[in-house]
């Protein structure tokens, strides 16, 4: 409790994301039961939780892909439940989203994948401007040579990096990462982690990172949050949580 309070008092005026009392269930299966979260500007907040604990459901509620049964989500000062679709889309230009399975459009080339959010969100970019932005995004992830490849020609790690480039292409203020390193070998996972850190430093984004990976959490997090039984069970820095005596928290760090 004391940890939570400390952070609440820290700098709540600079919160970019406020989740209050979120409930979401699927029939009998109650997934979120009053979940709270605050993301401060410029920080890397890591969210850990067991498989099936509702991390993906929660993160989807944040961008309007799922609608919570109860509770509110305030993104960059706007309550998303109050927004019309076009206002929501406007807001989404400020948000990058890395999906758990990369979610590259498999009927499109890498270039078309990256162009998609650009063409959709920003009206009237010239071909040249689009091309520059695409190449810039690919450069950030070190994959400029794959610009005309199809997603199926990319390895899993490359797909993740392209997905990252796509999430970054609109220079979002906030990025949500849903398990950026899952399914990758430790070396590739480390590459992705370093990439995320590099990007965060370069663009000064605020990030919410969902992960199972303790190493990833240690390297990347400024602050951590554990999702357990549908609520934010514990909050604190990696160090604080890793020395906790609570057996439920200990289980995460083995």
């Amino acid at each position, binding site marked *: 409790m004391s940890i939570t309070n400390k952070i609440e008092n820290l700098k709540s005026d600079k919160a970019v994301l406020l989740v209050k009392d979120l409930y979401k269930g699927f029939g009998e299966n109650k997934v979120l039961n009053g979940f709270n979260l605050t993301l401060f500007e410029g920080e890397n907040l890591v969210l850990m939780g067991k498989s099936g604990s509702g991390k993906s459901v929660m993160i989807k509620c944040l961008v309007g892909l799922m609608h919570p049964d109860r509770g509110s989500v305030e993104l960059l000062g706007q309550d998303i439940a109050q927004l019309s679709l076009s206002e929501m889309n406007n807001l989404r230009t400020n948000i990058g989203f890395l999906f758990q399975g990369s*979610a590259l459009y498999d009927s499109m080339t890498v270039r078309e994948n990256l162009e998609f959010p650009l063409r959709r969100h920003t009206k009237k970019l010239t071909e040249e401007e689009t091309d520059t932005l695409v190449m810039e995004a690919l450069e950030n992830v070190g994959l400029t040579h794959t610009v005309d490849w199809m997603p199926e020609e990319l390895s899993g790690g490359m797909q993740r990096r392209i997905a990252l480039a796509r999430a970054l292409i609109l220079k979002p203020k906030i990025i949500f990462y849903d398990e950026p390193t899952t399914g990758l070998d430790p070396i590739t996972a480390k590459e992705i982690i370093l990439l995320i850190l590099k990007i965060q430093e370069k663009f000064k984004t605020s990030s919410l990172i969902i992960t199972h990976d303790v190493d990833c959490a240690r390297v990347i997090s400024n602050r951590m949050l554990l999702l357990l039984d549908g609520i934010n069970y514990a909050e604190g820095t990696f160090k604080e949580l890793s020395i906790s005596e609570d057996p439920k928290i200990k289980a995460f760090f083995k």
Partner: protein
Amino acid sequence: MGDLFSLKQNIASFFMEIGEMSFFSLRFFKELFTKPFEFKELLNQCYSMGNKSLLLVGVTGLILGVVFTLQTRPTLLNFGAVAWMPSMISISIVREIGPVIIALICAGRIGSSIGAEIGSMRVTEQIDAMEVSGTNPFKYLVVTRILAATLMLPILVIFGDFIALIGSAIVENMKGSVSFVFYFNQVFQALTFSDVFPATIKTFFFGFAIGLVGCFKGYTSKKGTAGVGKASNSAVVYTSMLLFIIDFIAVFVTDIFT
């Protein structure tokens, strides 16, 4: 008892599904008339559907015409009515056999691939990714595909009918030494507006059904790769059934008005 219960459940879920599909088609009409329109994707889809099915429809049409003529010929010969061949064949192909067979072929080709494509996009979160990118996936994926299928099916059917008649003419030319010009003269004399018009209208509905069921099955597909297979498979099964129901209604309605 258990069997009866599962039968009851099956029937219930069948009607549930029909209800859901009705809502889905209502949503289609609602989104069809609201901006923005995805013209580019519509053209893309029209092109890819035509491109994918043209050869298949052509080959099927040709075989249909040839076989149908070969099968009918002896009977007509017996009655000394072989001169009726072009008009008989053309009327039955244009009115009924062409549209139904070609629609069934397209249900297998177009319907299943729509089901599989949208289903796998759903499962791999590509649909979610689209939504985050400020695109209405229903408009971008569903509306364009249903519309493209509705527009392309009549064209494919007309093309298939034409090839079938060519097949039939080839047989007549070889067996009965009827010239192509004469054959098609007969055909165009036999076909009236009341043959062609209802048959063509019907094919729009066939196309709509193929697009609708494929999209519905894909869009609502369940998680996992099994979900994708099921989406594409049941798209074909449902569509085939729906095609016969539409055909029945169409023939019934046409009968009332003529």
